[in-house]
């Protein structure tokens, strides 16, 4: 399995796409961090809430991780490389597991990079304003959750990619699902007084876990639900891939 994971790493760094991902992750994080620090009111400086808001800007990497996860699978179909991939590794579940592992590693690394970047922007900036980050236990927990959330979003992407396979449909579909479809379902569920059910939708559960939304589930329940979605989509992707003809 380590050979397959290192092959995935090699795939990632031998096309130019990674430069785009890295630039997008750095740019989005830097803009969000600078925006959050720069627009903070005086009465917010030094509060635990502001510290959490600043650290949370590193969550943009979760979006990048989702895209990388999706494309790690869909690119194989898009460019026909899946043929050779399956010739080298005919046990297709091994290919999928290697992708999940590789994207998990990369997503964690990206999250750490983003957190370091956010701190590198926020700490000196706040120092100039005579303030500092309030790094309490809450922030430390948030850092851990951001790393885990990035891993969950990334591996969810692998499952989405394996299920959908068309790169365009998977990328656009994932965004539409999170922004439009889930919101619609949640609104409909409210109409019939089933608010609680909506909390279990993947986007909602992940957002509750990483703290971008105030969800009805506890953090760890939301994390468990998110992990269940990652596993479910991965299995569904495997079912689709395992019986598929590659022509």
């Amino acid at each position, binding site marked *: 399995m380590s*050979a397959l994971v290192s*092959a995935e790493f090699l*795939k990632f760094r*031998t*096309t130019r796409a990674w430069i785009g991902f890295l630039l997008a992750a750095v740019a989005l994080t830097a803009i969000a961090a600078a925006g959050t620090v720069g627009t903070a009111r005086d009465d917010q400086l030094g509060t635990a809430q502001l510290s959490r808001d600043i650290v949370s800007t590193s969550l943009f990497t979760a979006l990048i991780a989702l895209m990388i996860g999706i494309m790690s699978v869909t690119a194989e179909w898009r460019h026909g490389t899946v043929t050779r*991939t399956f*010739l080298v*590794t005919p046990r297709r579940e091994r290919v999928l597991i290697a992708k999940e592992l590789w994207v998990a590693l990369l997503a964690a690394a990206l999250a750490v990079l983003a957190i370091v970047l956010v701190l590198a922007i926020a700490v000196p900036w706040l120092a100039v304003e005579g303030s500092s980050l309030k790094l309490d236990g809450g922030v430390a927990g948030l850092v851990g959750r951001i790393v885990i959330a990035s891993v969950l979003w990334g591996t969810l992407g692998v499952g989405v990619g394996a299920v959908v396979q068309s790169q365009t449909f998977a990328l656009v579909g994932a965004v539409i699902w999170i922004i439009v479809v889930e919101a619609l379902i949640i609104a409909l569920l409210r109409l019939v007084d089933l608010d609680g059910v909506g909390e279990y939708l993947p986007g909602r559960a992940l957002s509750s876990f990483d703290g971008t939304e105030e969800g009805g589930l506890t953090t760890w329940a939301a994390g468990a639900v998110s992990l269940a979605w990652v596993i479910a989509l991965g299995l569904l992707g495997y079912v689709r891939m395992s019986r598929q003809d*590659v*022509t």
Partner: protein
Amino acid sequence: MIEVEGLTKRYGSTVAVDDLSFSVAPGTVTGFLGPNGAGKSTTLRAILGLVRPDTGTTTVLGKAYRNLERPISQVGALLETFDAHPGRSGRNHLRVLAAAARIPTPRVDELLALVELTDSARRRAKGYSLGMRQRLGLAAALLGDPEVLILDEPANGLDPQGIRWLRDLLRARARDGGTVLISSHVLAEVAQTVDEVVIIHRGKLIQHAAMAEVEAMAAGSTIVRSPDSDRLAVLLTQAGVDVDSRKDGRLTVAAPPERVGEIAAANGVVLHELTTERATLEEVFLQLTAPEESE
């Protein structure tokens, strides 16, 4: 050793491969022939575990492809679709495959030199010509130094030297006890390379024979012209040889010219012309695949 047993594959209502069985023995190069759309690629993809048969089984070295322990070190494959990422260099493409199969990187450079791609190895594959893509595919097939080779239309895009090189390589593989299966839709293209031919048409097996037998089918007949052709016809018929009179007064004889000449000489018949009429391999091929055509 490659074995295909009762393989059937349908796509919707189209039957791509229809109860096909054949085997390819070690130490031989076998040509897998049929017109375009005969089901060759589907069969090869089924052998390679890429396509799931509706019924039937395929094995390579006694196992289903997916159960091979070190697939690309046991079976090298080349398919018609280009399977390298256009944005990745040829060398990196092979490095990815080598990494996944735990093949050391020096082997990659060895292969690039073998297929004469060293100079373009670090360029992105999207700029490769058809011939370069084919050579990169062959390098990928040979990367694990496999004992079985399964190549779909391997001569595509190769120049005459490349085809010659490939022929020598495949012959050498078979001589060393390897098993080689190459597909083509042109019999003449593989005639000098293969020991055996498996001919399919509309997914069905038409012929599995030694190349020598197919060539014998092309041996054709002898044309003879003689001022005494009526007597010659009788003599030949008495000798048990089929004879047909042609409109131009010549005879078409189903025997080699040596035989015709000997019979004529023994009986003192004067001959004015003695030639052989050879069918081309393509004519034989068309003839073999023709009966189905009329359906």
